[in-house]
Structure formats: structure tokens, C-alpha cells
């Protein structure tokens, strides 16, 4: 009655187990050997910190775990820890990230390469615990790098990659790694749990090169500054964000050489080479969209997919190259910038303004954690196909699966 196929063998360097995305992220944090972890619990992030506490209790993990009274304090604590020259980790979600908003701005100009897993969850109101990217996307201009992952494996791997990129002396920017609530955080799947030895070989101990507190080498950090100084600080932070692009690409390649899997750097493309139209997705919808691409290809439609992994830095040049041959481009978002459209649609239009006049469509779906089904994704492709070759006027914002609103 049912055709059952054995699993494909996936590259494994450590121990392969069935674990949740939160477990995978915690594992990634553990093998990255942060010396300080400060966090405050919030559904659906809580398990990340609980698992780290378990690892600590089991003697597998050696870090100072700080229990703090809020996310604002958690962020302040990891900033202070990084400022003493040690590696620090935290994790949060939704309202917790919103509460961190103020201290988020502190670490990028100060060259403090914190890594934080963020389980993407709806920000009230209405209150919801399910996935939406309206917690991380509004943090776009804080100076944090921002990555979106598709599954538990990537949630783990990106913590390791994240520190490696963030701690590059030419970058020294913090990174947040977005993982979809429940669809990654609570989903159990097969994950290669990288061994400590392999992780150590990939990620050496953190050596702060510039800003850190040391009684032997006193310095002022985080000082107030009059207008004579701040603009240069802004420019220098912007420069490091631009530089980070190259390191994201290179670090992913290096990771691939060591662990047998890569993610394509800042974007991954799927069946894009001979496509007429393509959709750009981020997060878990990408997995579903791969399946839809295969189905539509089987029906003769020339469609392809771009997985947006890095939202900051935004991969403008790579997108320009990847989309040069397309006749229309759809951009899926799980957050809305009210009155304009999806945040990554806005970014994509900006990035492609100089290189194309094809229509670029914004698709909003799955807000508040509503399921994005293969049919929803197919509709996005159909609309993009229908817009092909019609020029910029065919662009527009489409609310997919919204009751009372024609998509």
C-alpha cells in the first residue's frame, strides 16, 4: 500500500541522531566552546538553554552559565563577557529579541562578535508562539549579521560557521541565526552531531585582536562620543558588514571541505540555471519549495529556486548574477513591512534595480505561523510565471492564503 524507501546516506562526521532543532543549536553552541552563556527562557527557545544546562551538568560543557532576569540583561551580559575577550553565546525569540533591541546596537560598533540563535516567533499583537520573521527582520539595522536556516543541521552548523565569520579580525560583527519556531526548533530529524575534536579543528579558540578589557592593557570601551567621532565609527561598521560577505562564502566552503556539506554561502540555488522564473525563499519554506520546483519541472515549467541564507549582509552581487537570465522573480517573506511588502522583497528590488527590469513580486504567506503548503508555493510560482516578460509594472505585493483578500 505504501512505497517505503530507505533513507539516503547523509555525510556524517560525528554521531548521527534524531534530535530537535533546539538540541542541534545547543550542540552547535557547546562544541563552539563559548566561555559565557547568558540567556532568559522563552518558548520556543527554552530547550536550547535547557540542553546547554544538561551538557554542563553532564560535564560535557564548560562555561559560565548566567541566569539573568530578562533578555535585556542577557544581551548586556554577553556584551560585557565578549568585552573581556571571551567567546559568548545566547539565544532568544520574539518578544525576548524585541526586549534586546536596545543593547543589540552596542556590540557591532564595539567589535564584539557574539553569536545568538533566534527561534523566529511572532511578535505581539496578536500574541502568538508560532513562526514569523517579524522578530529578527526589524533588527536589520542594528549591525548584526543575520542568517536564516532551513533545518536542524543547518542550525547547528551555522553556530560554528557563525563564530568563525564573526571573529574574523576584518569582520568582528555579531551574528544572529534565525530558525523557524517549531518547524525547526521542535522538529525532530536526523542530525550529524559534530564531535568536539572536529569542531576544535574547524574553530580555533577566540583570540580578540582589538577591543577587550585586560588589566595589563587598560582601555576605554563603550564610551560616549561627540559628533566628531561617531560618523567614522558608522562608516567603519558598514565597511565590516560589507566585508563579511566574502567571509561567509569562504567559511562555508571551508566547512564543506571539512564536513562534506555546504550551504552555498549567502544564497543557495536550486534548478536555477535554465529557469525562466524563480522564487526566493528563506527558512523552512525553502524545503517545501524544493519539492514544488521538482513537481512543476515535471510538468514542463522552467522554474528555479533561490534560498536566501544571509539577510545581513545582503547578497546583492550574488543575486544580480543568479537572476540575470530570469524573466520574473518572486520573493517570499514571512514578515511584512507595513505599507510596502516583504522585507527581503524590498532588499531584492533594491539589489536588482541596476541590473534588471523584470517584474519582482512580493509574496506574503505563513504569517503568524500559518502553514505554507505546497499549493501556496505553487500559486507563488504560477503568479511569477504569469508576470514573466511583462516588465516592472507587473510587480506587486500578494497576500497568499489571506481570507477575504485576493492573492
Amino acid at each position, binding site marked *: *500500500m*505504501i*512505497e*517505503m*524507501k*530507505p*533513507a*539516503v546516506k547523509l555525510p556524517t562526521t560525528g554521531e548521527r*541522531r*534524531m534530535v*530537535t532543532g533546539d538540541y542541534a543549536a545547543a550542540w552547535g553552541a557547546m562544541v563552539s566552546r563559548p566561555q559565557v552563556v547568558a540567556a532568559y527562557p522563552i*518558548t520556543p527557545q527554552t530547550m536550547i538553554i535547557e540542553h546547554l544546562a544538561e551538557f554542563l551538568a553532564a560535564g560535557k560543557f564548560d562555561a559560565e552559565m548566567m541566569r539573568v532576569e530578562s533578555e535585556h540583561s542577557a544581551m548586556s551580559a554577553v556584551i560585557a563577557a565578549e568585552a573581556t575577550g571571551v567567546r559568548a553565546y545566547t539565544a532568544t525569540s520574539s518578544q525576548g529579541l524585541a526586549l534586546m533591541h536596545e543593547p543589540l546596537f552596542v556590540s557591532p560598533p564595539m567589535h564584539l562578535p557574539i553569536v545568538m540563535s533566534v527561534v523566529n516567533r511572532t511578535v505581539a*499583537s*496578536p500574541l502568538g*508562539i508560532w513562526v514569523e520573521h517579524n522578530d529578527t527582520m526589524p533588527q536589520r539595522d542594528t549591525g548584526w549579521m543575520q542568517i536564516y536556516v532551513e*533545518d536542524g543541521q543547518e542550525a547547528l552548523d551555522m553556530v560554528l560557521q557563525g563564530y568563525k565569520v564573526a571573529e574574523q579580525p576584518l569582520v568582528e560583527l555579531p551574528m544572529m541565526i534565525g530558525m523557524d519556531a*517549531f*518547524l525547526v526548533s*521542535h*522538529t*525532530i*530529524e*536526523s542530525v550529524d552531531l559534530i564531535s568536539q575534536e572536529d569542531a576544535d579543528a574547524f574553530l580555533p579558540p577566540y583570540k580578540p585582536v582589538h577591543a577587550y578589557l585586560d588589566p595589563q592593557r587598560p582601555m576605554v570601551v563603550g564610551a560616549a562620543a561627540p559628533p566628531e567621532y561617531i560618523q567614522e565609527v558608522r562608516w567603519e561598521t558598514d565597511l565590516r558588514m560589507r566585508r563579511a560577505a566574502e567571509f561567509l562564502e569562504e567559511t562555508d566552503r571551508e566547512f564543506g571541505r571539512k564536513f562534506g556539506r555546504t550551504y552555498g554561502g549567502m544564497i543557495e540555488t536550486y534548478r536555477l540555471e535554465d529557469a525562466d522564473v524563480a522564487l526566493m525563499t528563506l527558512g*523552512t*519554506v525553502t*524545503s*517545501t519549495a*524544493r*519539492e514544488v520546483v521538482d513537481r512543476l519541472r515535471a510538468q514542463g515549467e522552467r522554474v528555479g529556486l533561490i534560498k536566501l541564507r544571509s539577510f545581513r549582509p545582503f547578497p546583492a552581487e550574488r543575486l544580480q548574477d543568479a537572476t540575470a537570465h530570469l524573466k520574473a522573480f518572486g520573493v517570499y517573506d514571512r514578515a511584512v513591512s507595513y505599507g510596502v511588502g516583504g522585507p527581503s522583497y524590498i532588499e531584492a528590488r533594491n539589489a536588482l534595480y541596476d541590473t534588471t527590469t523584470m517584474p519582482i513580486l512580493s509574496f506574503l504567506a505563513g504569517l503568524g505561523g500559518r*502553514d*505554507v*503548503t*505546497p499549493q501556496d508555493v505553487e500559486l507563488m510560482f504560477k503568479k511569477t510565471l504569469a508576470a514573466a516578460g511583462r516588465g516592472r509594472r507587473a510587480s506587486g505585493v500578494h497576500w497568499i492564503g*489571506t*481570507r*477575504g*483578500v485576493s492573492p
Partner: protein
Amino acid sequence: MAAQALAVAASHDGYSAIAFPFFGAERRGAPVLAFTRFGEERLRVRTQVYEPHFVVVLDESLVETVDVLAGLRPGGMVIVNTTRAPDRLVLSKKAKSATVDATTIALKHTKQAAVNTAMLGAFAKATGLITLEGVEAGIMEVFGRRLSKEIADRNVAAARAAYEATRLGEGDSGRVYAKATKWLPTAQELPPGLATPPMETPFGRVGVGSSPSNLTGGWRVNKPVLDGAECTNCLLCWFYCPDGSITRGEKIVEIHYEYCKGCGICAAVCAPKAIHMEREIEEEVKA
């Protein structure tokens, strides 16, 4: 956790597998949905499952309000925790059925009414797609690592017992469900900002004062029974009941079973022991 353990079992048996829960109300005993996919070379679709091959119903009372067969694929099977024989199930359509009294098995082996591991044993038996060894591996991974070896062992015993006790047959059609059961307004119909005044909808009352129309007594496994002669009307139970299922009376209190979820707190706080908990078994339908 059953969906997770099933995914681990499938993985143990050599399949790629993925499982995730969809949380509703965050309360113990509240109805939840969880999804498991396994048996494709590489699983990609990350959505809820709308057209399952198998539906596993952990709480039989749900079939009264939810058409559990709504999306079932032709030839699919429903596996229900019930004291009924599979041929005595009446659902929305005829379907292959398997039944097991997982609650009794769970109470016996684990001393708790958590039936998820027993239902895994039933799934293995009913479908033949997963081995009992796989189920054991699943339970060890999900329960053993998190709780303890001893708890995992008891759950393995429950799964084995359920495996043996599962009966196969075919359920009947005939149960009728309301077409739509949920109020799903359009963007235009929605009260602005979801600020909801008391409103009557075709699917019942919403907004202020709508809670009494949500009958939640079906979540219960054990029910509190009041001995009026012993009750001193001290009102401790009334005060402690987390669900407001107890009301005050002239001489004694009254328990409202339409809402009581069987947590047992009232029985625990009652000093003269006027309340005791009793296992509630759905009456067999006498056909």
C-alpha cells in the same frame, strides 16, 4: 512525544523521518496535533500533514468533535485508543481500523494515563511498517535520555503489551460532523485588531463570555466524585480548581463535569476526603 518517538523508530529501521508538534492550548491533556513523516528517501516538505496514510487517535473522546478521517488517504488506517473492538468504531467513513485499550495498558505499566508509548506499539502492530525493536529504540531515545532508564523501560513494556493487544478490523461510517467547526472570518469581517466583543457566530459564541461554550470535560481520564455527606463546604476545592469547574452551593459544592479536566487537585486539597478520583471508561456502544 509519541510523534517524535515514532520518527526515531522509523529512523532506527532505516528510513528518513521527521516529526513535529503543533501546539494548541499549552495545558496538559489539551488536544494537540503532531505529525510524523517517514519512508521517503529524503523528506523535504515541512508542513503539517493534511492527507495522512495513518491517523493515530490517543484520546477517543476527540472523535466526537473532530472528523479524524477527514484527510485520510484511500486505503489508509485509523488507530484508536479505545476499549471498543475495531469493528465497533463509527466514524465519518468506512476505514481500516485498529484499536487497543492503551489507557488501561499505560496505567498498568507506567502508572500514568500517558498513552503515547503504548500507541506506538499499536502502530507497529497495525501497520507492520515499523518494528517493535524500532519502537523500543524510539522510546529509549526520547524518554530514556530525557527522563530515566527506568521510566523508559516501563514505557517499553507498555508498547509491547499494546503491540500484543492491538486488534485489527474495519470501522463503520455513519458519524456526521458539522461541515465547518471553526469561526474563520475574512480580513474584513474580523473585529479590528482582534479586539473581540461578545459575538454570536454560526460556530458558537466568541469573545467575552465565550468560555462556557467550550466544553473541555472530554480531556479527562479520571473524574472527581463528591460525597455530599462528607463535604463541609469549606470551599478549598472551589478555590483551588484551576479551571473554575466547581461552583458554590448552599450546603455543598458542585462539580461541573462539562469543564472538569480531571487534574485531581480538588481531591488532593479536600481535608475530609469528600472528593475521590475515579477512572472514567467510555461506555461500550451497545449496537
